[in-house]
């Protein structure tokens, strides 16, 4: 440990390929164990009632998870596009534009996400008139917008931070080579920015994905809502326990690999 009074050398770690590393990961082992348990139950026909009920509900649950993933993907897409624009505006030479962008970022980063979701769900109309037709405006799209707004504010900040972290020496070097401002942006600064932004952007994606669970509070039929419905329908306390911990497990199974990959990316880009 760092504050030991005497330091001893650390032994070298053995290195292997991807597959051995996966097999050594305790989570993967746990997953395999659960699968093995499930197979054993099915083979011997001794599956507990709660687990059987879970199995019956699993298509609905997975559909719910699909809704969460759908919302998160679209919210991140919307948030990234809008966020890059806002981020670019926050760096503009015009002081007024900069202030507008900063106000946008301040507003949507300091608002609780739940409040923003309520905002877009209840304040937006439930149908929109487009070219004479009434098009229903489904709740889940409202949640997409509700999550896209804070996502965009965060992307704008990440973008601004990345641009500002490029040492000014590079700007000066490029300018002395007679590049125009837009050329500098495109060929030198942007590629580096993308690399610097990536870990934070992935963290944001994970955070937005987890925030999609709030959709259940505004009536969207996502995973959490499906679990609640299932729990009320089956009305067995064993099943309730099982289904809610399955919720945890499903979100974990989706988000944890992303988090691991993000850490891998961070390590790779740290060595540049």
């Amino acid at each position, binding site marked *: 440990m760092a504050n030991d009074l005497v330091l001893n050398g650390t032994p070298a770690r053995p290195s292997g390929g991807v597959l051995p590393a996966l097999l050594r990961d305790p989570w993967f082992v746990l997953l395999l164990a659960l699968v093995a348990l499930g197979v054993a139950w099915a083979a011997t026909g001794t599956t507990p009632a709660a687990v059987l009920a879970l199995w019956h509900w699993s298509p609905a649950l997975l559909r719910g998870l699909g809704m969460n993933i759908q919302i998160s993907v679209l919210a991140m897409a919307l948030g990234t596009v809008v966020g890059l624009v806002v981020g670019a505006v926050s760096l503009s030479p015009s002081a007024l534009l900069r202030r507008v962008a900063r106000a946008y970022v301040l507003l949507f980063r300091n608002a609780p996400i739940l409040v923003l979701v309520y905002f877009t769900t209840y304040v937006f109309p439930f149908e929109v008139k487009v070219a004479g037709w009434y098009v229903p405006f489904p709740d889940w799209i409202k949640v997409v917008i509700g999550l896209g707004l804070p996502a965009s504010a965060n992307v704008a900040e990440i973008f601004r931070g990345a641009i500002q972290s490029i040492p000014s020496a590079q700007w000066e070097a490029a300018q002395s080579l007679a590049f125009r401002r837009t050329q500098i942006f495109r060929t030198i600064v942007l590629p580096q920015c993308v690399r610097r932004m990536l870990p934070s952007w992935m963290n944001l994606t994970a955070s937005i994905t*987890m925030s999609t669970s709030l959709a259940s509070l505004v009536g969207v039929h996502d995973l959490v809502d499906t679990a609640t419905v299932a729990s009320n329908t089956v009305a067995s306390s064993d099943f309730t326990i099982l289904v809610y911990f399955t919720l945890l497990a499903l979100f974990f199974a989706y988000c944890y690999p992303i988090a691991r990959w993000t850490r891998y990316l961070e390590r790779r880009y740290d060595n540049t």
Partner: protein
Amino acid sequence: MTATLLQAWVDVFRPLGLNYSFVQDPAELSAFGHGLLVTLQLCAWTIPVSLLFGVLIAAALTSNRPWLARPLQAFVEVTRNTPTLVQLYCAFLVLNMLITQKLGGGNPITPFAWVVIVVALHKGVFHAEALRAGIEAVPSVTMEAARSLAFSRRQILTQVQLPLAVRFALPALVNNLVDLVKMTAIASAIAVGDVTYESIMIWSHRDNVLELLLLILLYFGLLTWLVSVAGRWLEDRLRMPGYGQ
């Protein structure tokens, strides 16, 4: 006196299309006021408890005891990679039910307490990460220097590691606390009477969602601003002149 102020408020906003007449209903006004108080209480409890959890988790993770660090690391990963709402449901709907069954009624942990515990644990994990990064940012030579000055292990920890780690981690910790304040809004999901919940109750009668959301936004904006100001004051008091910030 207050009646005239409230009337003025309603009158100011009516031309803008905003209906604040709920403030003239004493029951609804006091419910809203109660909600403001409960949110404040949630923050007042969760902030110190989360910091405490953060220090404990950081200490356990950096200790050299694998039987403590490993399970805790697993817990940290689960907490970071699952939604807080789901954690709250698991705690309140599942654990609470189990505890009530075991105790046969008379469960001392209120929903308010569950919100504090779950949110404080969730943010405590992020605090622990920030503190751990802060601990690792202390240059190893500075620790060798402390060792060479005949400090004991505990003295190195308290006189050198912790003061420096806290200073390095402070911006991240303050960010986490701002997030934490915003996160208390999920208390409304388990019917804890915070400002969000009370607002939902009011707008389901009066349909003045926008008006209430604006008030909520202002209130959370105020709270987060207070936290950032406090954070900046602390950063100023603890700063190390000349140490590149």
